């Protein structure tokens, strides 16, 4: 561990897993949504459901959706701020199969009608992992610039995307491929060392058999 993992992070309490981690999950959802949210439903699982209220997990998730960071002193008041910003919130408890104890299923909707659904867990010390995105199994931490591309399961998209990244000298740190069925929907999750510019993403939007691109800077 780096010495600033030992001392730090600077965060709003009380718990790095139930508060700071939850802020980060909300923030990842907000960035993936890419627009101002108008609706969010948070379904809390396991320890998030049992002790979430006392740890401010719900407030933390909302704070993240409002683009607050883990050290933002407005976190305790996020519900009031959400009201001012016309963000409608629904909270419920859910029992997800085989999920980590600190897990949430988030369903969000943006002002332009974009919808997003994700399942993410807080693993301790503020570290998080996203396990499901719009019903597709994925796995990423949000620590790197992350490009998530959903496409039809056909030959070509991986070569197309990686070629664009190569042309722009973007180094891939991790890459995973998923699909729901042969010839069905597929997803690639690319974590990169370098930021991916808007130009590259706009260019990728034109790709044949593309379903959706999400980018997390």
């Amino acid at each position: 561990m780096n010495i600033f993992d030992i001392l730090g992070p600077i965060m709003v309490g009380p718990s790095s897993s139930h508060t700071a981690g939850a802020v980060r999950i909300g923030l990842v959802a907000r960035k993936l949504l890419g627009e101002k949210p108008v609706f969010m439903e948070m379904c809390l699982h396991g320890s998030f459901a049992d002790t979430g209220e006392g740890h401010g997990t719900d407030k933390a998730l909302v704070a993240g959706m409002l683009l607050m960071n883990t050290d933002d002193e407005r976190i305790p008041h996020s519900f009031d701020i959400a009201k001012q910003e016309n963000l409608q919130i629904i909270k419920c408890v859910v029992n997800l199969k085989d999920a980590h104890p600190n897990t949430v299923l988030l369903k969000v909707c943006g002002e332009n009608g974009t919808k997003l659904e994700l399942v993410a867990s807080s693993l301790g010390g503020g570290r998080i992992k996203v396990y499901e995105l719009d019903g597709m199994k994925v796995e990423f931490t949000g620590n790197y610039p992350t490009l998530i591309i959903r496409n039809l399961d056909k030959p070509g998209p991986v070569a197309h995307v990686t070629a664009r990244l190569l042309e722009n000298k973007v180094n891939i740190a991790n890459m995973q491929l998923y699909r729901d069925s042969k010839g069905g929907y597929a997803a690639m999750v690319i974590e990169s060392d370098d930021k991916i510019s808007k130009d590259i993403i706009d260019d990728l939007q034109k790709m044949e058999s593309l379903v959706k691109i999400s980018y997390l800077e």
Partner: protein
Amino acid sequence: MGLTSVKEFIELSKSKNIPLWQVVLESDCDDTGITKEESIEKMTLLWQTMKNSSKSYNKNDKSASKLVGGDGGLMQEYILSGKSISGGIIPEVIKEALKMGECNACMKRIVAAPTAGSCGVLPAVLIPFQKQRNISDEEIVKSLYVSAGFGQIIAYRASISGAEGGCQAEIGSASAMASATLVYLCSDDSISDVADKCANACAMSLKNLLGLVCDPVAGLVEVPCVKRNVIGAVNAISSAEMALAGIESKIPVDEVIDAMKEVGDLLPSSLRETGKGGLAGTVTGQQIKFMMNNI
């Protein structure tokens, strides 16, 4: 790769003839590629944030569960009454530990050191101590590197997570870090002697809290976590006092850390942050949990 044993840590200080804080700074810059100036700037921000957290304390704040809040204020009144048994810096340290633990429970901004639950230990000793001895911020920032160095080794060999190793891994580690830091700040010995004494302080404070279980009532970072910050801080002072007096730990510090790991592994899961055993499992602990689930 950071530091992995106290033995190596101390030998680096002795062979290079540089103080412990500098060993940590250099090792971190090598590992992460940031400059010394950037690193010191980050550490300074942590120290400023610790002081600001203490200032942000309001004795009228209560946590969401209403289980904690106000004890820092009670301690302050008690100090002002002049009736303290120990006097001197100790009641101030107790007060600071309570304040910081309560700030965390009340969703204020804190510095995890090494965790949010144990965030009160280091500032509890450093804030009153800085005032008492008129120590500069620069010197305190240097001492935080000593603290981070010992913490890094504990995290590598054992754990700093209550869910993994029990409270000994959180408050125990925070206490060990704080006590080495205090020795660094107080000792006027040679670089080599200071390093040895810091290691002894770290060993003794960890030993004294070995076996401490993580048993938070209703799973919240409140009871007994806030008050455990007090024992972590006071234990740091007593161990630092012993080390400065020249008292040594009979068991070398790396072996103490390894023992902490072994004890943590042996702890049943009910005593590792699950909110089931220990104080969480008492009749009152269960009642509090029941009431909280039915509000």
